[in-house]
């Protein structure tokens, strides 16, 4: 008997995008089809982390009764606020002045980890009702590398036994919804992305609180981010008295030591948040990245022979609308049509599979990504927005003036500057063509001599504030001794790097930006060297993104090792 294992469709990552793809494909399948789903977490959803407030437009298509029980909702947004925050005060911007894309009323509040496990269960049921449609899920089996035959993708390697052929899952088409974990190899092999992808790192805590905030959603500008740093906070009120508190911050910061988990602690030091979580209890912590390049970081092609990219791996996240979940799901939904077409034609070449690209770009995903194409570039073209305007507004809010006054004050103090900013506004709201936004990789923005200190609130309750080492406990990571999922290429490169950042009185970026206190520098044999406590790692890949010397690679861990993000 042949030991070769083959499916028609192999999905890498039990992600929102791939699960939507599988659902749609099962719906379309009018003849037998075999689908395999690989997920590196021990359980479906175990490594999924998001906010998340999301337009339910794709959920509605897949689950028409999504709001009538069954589908795991954390709530439906009833009140959404865009907040300007100083160290003392907190002002919600009047609705009239709030951009429409920050108005989230009616949107679903989701825990995508729970959503994925629900979608997986439903998928099994729906597949069982269709003759010959097979969906096999393999949680705990991470795709480790892509298997090529010439220029064609023929599968992925998902195990390392001594018996090579038994470790490979062959497929006619392999779809990567893996946030780039291994699909970046595909992107670089085919040189699909001329403009690099750029990222934000997001950290999040889930709290159980005394009061219920269900349905309330805050997006936060200003404190606690330092002037010049793109990003913001979010607070989402969920059912069962749970509250989600998070920070998202761009990795293209000059600051080599962003300390994301501590920025999140800073947010919790604010009197407004203190009030919310007083008497509450921390339940969960986690971190993940957001690919934020958008339109101009999309690959030239969305498919190659035998493979496709969807969701964050493709780069469908729209920072302007803070919309990642719905676009990822829609990308999977649309990709399913191209996969089905390929199955019907029995042609899995790029020619057929890439019908996905125009399909997606002619729909609302393409439309909105195009509309948001300069959102990131605005902050490069107009550094005064993050460097001056928002910090000034925040200062005047702290001095007791409302946001409208603060805005007007900014306008009056610098009329020319504000006139210039009308251009920025246009670039965000209704851009005319200015040529592509060109990004530099995030790591190239780091400056060892960066110095920017921010003021802190006073008199906060220390008991709700955690050190990074302590908060990581709430990510419930589990690894065994055979784990070795982060590769450091050259120890000497680290020695030089440490010397450089030491000289500037800074930690190296891997130490300073890690979300789980994995990286350390230790004195070994008279030299300061780089070391890792891998058992803490939440697999966010931030360290790899910021390492100035491209000296790290975060691989997909084996055997389901990693954090437990259920409930995130």
């Amino acid at each position, binding site marked *: 008997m042949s030991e070769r294992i083959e499916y028609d469709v192999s999905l890498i990552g039990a992600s929102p995008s791939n699960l939507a793809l599988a659902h749609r494909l099962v719906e379309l399948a009018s003849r037998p089809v075999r689908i395999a789903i690989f997920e590196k977490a021990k359980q479906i959803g175990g490594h999924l982390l998001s906010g998340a407030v999301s337009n339910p437009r794709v959920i509605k298509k897949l689950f028409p009764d999504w709001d009538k029980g069954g589908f795991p909702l954390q709530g439906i947004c009833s009140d959404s606020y865009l907040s300007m925050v100083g160290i003392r005060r907190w002002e919600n911007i009047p609705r009239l002045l709030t951009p429409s894309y920050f108005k989230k009323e009616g949107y679903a509040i989701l825990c995508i980890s729970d959503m994925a496990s629900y979608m997986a269960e439903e998928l099994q049921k729906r597949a069982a009702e269709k003759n010959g449609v097979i969906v096999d899920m393999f949680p705990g089996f991470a795709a480790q590398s892509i298997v090529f035959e010439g220029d064609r993708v023929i599968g992925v390697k*998902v195990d390392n036994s001594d*018996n090579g052929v*038994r*470790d490979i*899952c062959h497929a006619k088409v392999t779809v990567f919804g893996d946030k780039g974990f291994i699909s970046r190899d595909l992107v670089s092999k085919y040189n699909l992305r001329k403009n690099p992808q750029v990222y934000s790192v997001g950290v999040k805590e889930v709290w159980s609180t005394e009061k219920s905030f269900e349905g309330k959603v805050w997006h936060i500008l200003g404190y606690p981010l330092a002037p010049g740093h793109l990003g913001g906070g979010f607070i989402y009120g969920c059912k069962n008295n749970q509250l989600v508190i998070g920070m998202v911050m761009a990795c293209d910061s000059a600051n080599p030591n962003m300390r994301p988990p501590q920025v999140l602690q800073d947010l919790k030091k604010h009197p407004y948040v203190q009030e919310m979580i007083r008497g509450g209890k921390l339940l969960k912590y986690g971190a993940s990245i957001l690919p934020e390049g958008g339109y101009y970081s999309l690959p030239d092609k969305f498919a190659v022979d035998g493979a496709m990219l969807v969701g964050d791996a493709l780069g469908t996240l729209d920072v302007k609308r803070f919309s990642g979940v719905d676009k990822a799901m829609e990308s999977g939904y649309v990709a399913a049509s191209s996969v089905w077409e390929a199955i019907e034609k029995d042609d899995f070449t790029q020619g057929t599979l890439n019908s996905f690209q125009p399909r997606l770009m002619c729909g609302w995903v393409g439309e909105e990504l195009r509309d948001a194409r300069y959102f990131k570039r605005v902050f490069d073209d107009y550094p005064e927005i993050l460097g001056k305007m928002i910090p000034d507004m925040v200062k005047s809010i702290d001095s007791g003036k409302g946001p409208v006054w603060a805005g007007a004050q900014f306008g009056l103090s610098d009329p020319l500057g504000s006139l210039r900013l009308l251009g920025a506004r246009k670039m965000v709201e209704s851009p005319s063509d200015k040529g592509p936004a060109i990004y530099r990789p995030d790591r190239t923005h780091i400056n060892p001599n960066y110095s920017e200190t921010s003021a802190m609130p006073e008199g906060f309750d*220390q008991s709700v504030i955690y*050190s990074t080492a302590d908060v990581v406990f709430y990510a419930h990571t589990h690894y065994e001794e055979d784990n070795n999922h982060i590769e450091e290429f050259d120890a000497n490169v680290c020695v030089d790097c440490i010397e450089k950042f030491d000289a500037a009185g800074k930690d190296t970026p891997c130490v300073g930006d890690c979300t789980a206190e994995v990286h350390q520098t230790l004195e070994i044999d008279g030299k300061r060297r780089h070391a890792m406590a891998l058992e803490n790692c939440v697999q966010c890949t931030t360290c790899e993104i910021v390492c100035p010397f491209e000296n790290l690679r975060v691989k997909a861990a*084996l055997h389901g090792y990693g954090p437990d993000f259920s409930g995130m």
Partner: protein
Amino acid sequence: MSDGLKIVVLIKQVPDTSSAAGVNPDGTVDRVRARKMMNPFDQFALQKAIETRNAHGGEIIVVSMGPPPALAILHEACEYGADKGYLLSDRRLAASDTLATAFALFKTIEFIGNVDIVFTGLQTTDGDTAQVGPQIAERLDFPQVTYCEKMSIEGRTIRASRIIDGGIQRLEVDIPALITIANSASRLEHKRFYNVYRTRELLRDKQTLAKTVMTITLDNIGADPARVGLMGSPTVVGKTWKLGEKGGSCKMFQGDSAKHGVETLIESLSEDERGIEEYVL
């Protein structure tokens, strides 16, 4: 058998110890509602069987006695690499004590026939008696090695080391033999993709499945119903009671750092009249 060893592993489905679901208010287990899992001790037995088969060839037959849902652990054992399985399931087995359980399992092993090695776990997490293995060995008239940690096979001889008070005892027994594996033996290795895949395929292929993982009854194995179940179980349970709540009180010292936490701990201990010394053993 000419090619390799015929290895039987006894595995039992027990309530999931990590889940509070299915525990009655009086502390007894509601066996219908409780989440279930493979007895953790049996995982060591399964691992030893896998190592033995991989080194010497042959086949692994997993055997369980229990209600129909126990099929799940046989399928799981296949995902770990077992080749075949038998579930002995029969209403007449209900309320079997160790005497009856061992008798029924003994009859099952006889039914399978020509078995070279029987591996069992040390004990179960629910019954906890550690009696079933040894009783079966007596009935089969096999030599037995209990608490076995390591073993090797040469020809038809097993060299085994077993844990005893204060040390290790080495012994040799001849095949066929029954061996209960200590929980200090090597841990069950992670599932292999190929085995998981093969099991998925097996579960869909009803014809092959019926020849691979089989459910059998007392009639199949020719066991006298009077010797199993309530009738065949002389054990009398006088009374069960709940041993109170687990543990004493626990105070968590949390702070913005481990350092801060330790400081407040030391502070609070030194405020306590007893002084720190009394806490340090």
